[in-house]
């Protein structure tokens, strides 16, 4: 087990190097010279040379790459180009807000999606099943932007049930006041694709022989569905869940932007708008790392759910 984890962690290294190379290529080679951008409109050559020196982009590429590599390893990306806030402090202060939306979302969403998927898979082919599937398809086709605009306008602005936007200091204040509507909207958006997906996973299992056996033994339908079928569909469901996890950090960027929630996703948009390269670089690299770790965690969880799985 430990050997497996170590080996898998070791396998992350080449991919991580690749990610660093890709980001470096994008921002330092393709991205070109940001000095003009930062110096403003009335910059003299001296200032520009100064800025270049400050940013270290007057060095040859291999030196820049080495600097970037060191930054990744030491978690020290320097300061943001536009606000001069340390990138590490940006991470530390923006992460809680993102998590406060993301964690309730993924918990509630998974429970609801599995419950609905179970009930429609059980009555597969019926009118209910088809109605739910059509609703999901239509719901999926409406842009997330529309959900946000309409929900924010109707529920927060017109009815005043929720604050239109904002973020507080206390955990409970944020969780129950400011995060409620964003989570609700994110739920509306992400439930539809997940119900469809989970339904397919469950249907795959419901056709298996062991389900017939379980019924033949005289088990109750509840037991067949909730214990036998659900447990066997756990692997694809967990995979899907773990794939979604790192995306949550940045995937809620639209919601964070609309509701002025100081999270990582909003920071991504802001830094793209301001051409704030260090912040985007740092976020991309670490989210990629988080994705790889989440994949590893998913593989380890397979073993916990299904003892037959062998970790190779």
């Amino acid at each position, binding site marked *: 087990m430990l050997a497996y984890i170590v080996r898998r962690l070791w396998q992350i290294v080449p991919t991580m190097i690749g990610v660093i190379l890709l980001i470096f290529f994008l921002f330092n080679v393709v*991205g070109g010279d940001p000095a003009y951008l930062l110096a403003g409109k009335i910059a003299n050559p001296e200032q520009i040379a100064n800025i270049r020196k400050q940013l270290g982009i007057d060095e040859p590429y291999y030196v820049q790459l080495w600097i970037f590599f060191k930054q990744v390893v030491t978690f020290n990306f320097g300061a943001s180009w536009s606000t001069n806030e340390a990138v590490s402090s940006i991470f530390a202060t923006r992460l809680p807000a993102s998590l406060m939306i993301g964690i309730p979302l993924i918990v509630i969403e998974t429970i609801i999606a599995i419950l609905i998927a179970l009930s429609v898979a059980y009555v597969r082919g019926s009118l209910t099943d088809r109605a739910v599937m059509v609703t999901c398809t239509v719901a*999926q*086709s409406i*842009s997330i932007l529309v959900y946000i605009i309409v929900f924010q306008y109707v529920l927060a602005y017109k009815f005043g049930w929720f604050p239109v936007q904002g973020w507080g200091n206390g955990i409970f204040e944020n969780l129950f006041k400011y995060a409620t509507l964003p989570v609700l909207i994110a739920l509306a958006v992400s439930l539809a694709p997940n119900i469809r997906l989970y339904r397919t996973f469950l249907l795959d299992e419901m056709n298996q022989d062991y389900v017939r056996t379980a019924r033949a033994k005289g088990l109750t339908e509840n037991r067949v569905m909730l214990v036998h079928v659900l447990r066997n569909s756990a692997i694809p469901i967990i995979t899907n869940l773990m794939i979604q996890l*790192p995306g949550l950090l940045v*995937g809620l960027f639209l919601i964070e932007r609309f509701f002025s929630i100081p999270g990582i996703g909003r920071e*991504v*948009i802001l830094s793209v708008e301001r051409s704030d390269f260090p912040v*985007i670089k740092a976020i991309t690299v670490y989210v990629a790392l988080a994705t*790889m770790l989440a994949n590893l965690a998913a593989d380890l969880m397979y073993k916990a759910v299904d003892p037959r799985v062998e970790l190779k």
Partner: protein
Amino acid sequence: MNTAVMNPSIGIERSPGLWSLAWKRLMADKIAVFSVIVVILFVLLALASFFGIVAKGWNNETAVNYAPPTWFKDSHKPSADLSGKQPTTSGPALDTGLAKPEFVNDRDPLRDTINELKGQLGQSTGSGAVDEIKIVDPLADVIAELKKKLGRKGDEIGSGETVKKLDSLPFGADKWGRDVLDKVIKGTETSLLVGFAAAIIATLIGTVLGAFAGYFGGKIDDALNWFYSIFSSIPYILLVLAIAAVLNKKGVFTVVLILGLTGWSNIFRVVRAEYLKHKGRDYVRAANAIGASNMRRMFVHIFPNISHVVLVQLSIYVVLFIKSEVILSYLGFGVGVDTVSWGSMLNEAQNELILGYWWQLGAATLFMAVLVTAFSLFTDSLRDALDPKLK
């Protein structure tokens, strides 16, 4: 050899191929037929807009700003014809407002305030349009002189408007008085163009790389897999935004490039797995035996046998990219101001909604939802038709 088998005189009927079977299955599926028709209608609409048959004048101010949608009332005519009152003017051109002080806009929330102010001004300075303008515009005298020199009648000059504006349109008008129906049609063109172009680029890259990785295996497979793992470990939308930040350039072409270059990883995985499965099969070994080159075996022999997988993936991509383009354009990283996208329409609509002008939001949402729903249903049916084992 083939001809002998297919010769009906021997009494063996040619069995229907994958495509004709799939076509039959597709046509038997009512939802599929319906969604195909809807998609074709949208494509025709986009083509008509592309060749300038419809929505050519989407950027013209054809109506009063924020003209409401009206379907049944006969009010698609200039208001002057209906009520005989002075045609209302508006629009982005600043000089129109100055030249026509009798600016009337029933939907203007500040109307009362303006009227009140006008009343006060009238008391203190004595009425008269020119005087009123003078207060705001120091150049009013010069303009009045110019008007005289040009020798035309007062009102019609400054405005530069010869076309009378409409009071309402089927889908209403936007901030600048542009026809929302025209805009939403133009947006359809943008969406389908970006969706298909980016999907084709992504599919080409993914298929070629996947074919090489799966077919050759070994070092090439390792290298390409490494490349794939890099792209798949960065969340898709983050990669898109990062590249948008680097390119820092707007336009349809940029969007196509961004989406096409980042989206290939899904199809790479699928195609690679298919090539792994197929490369050891008898027909490929037979092709090898008759001296077909690697390239020929990969793309002439194997590819037709996996093309259904590619087609389904292509269809999935179109939907994904249409949705992504809308988000990019909404954020202002997408198409430029010289063209319309549903995303940029949503961006405008967001502020209009608070003022009560819901029609631009409604139009963009409706068109996008119908197209994407139809395309998704079509994709589902296509997958079912091409792979009957999946259900």
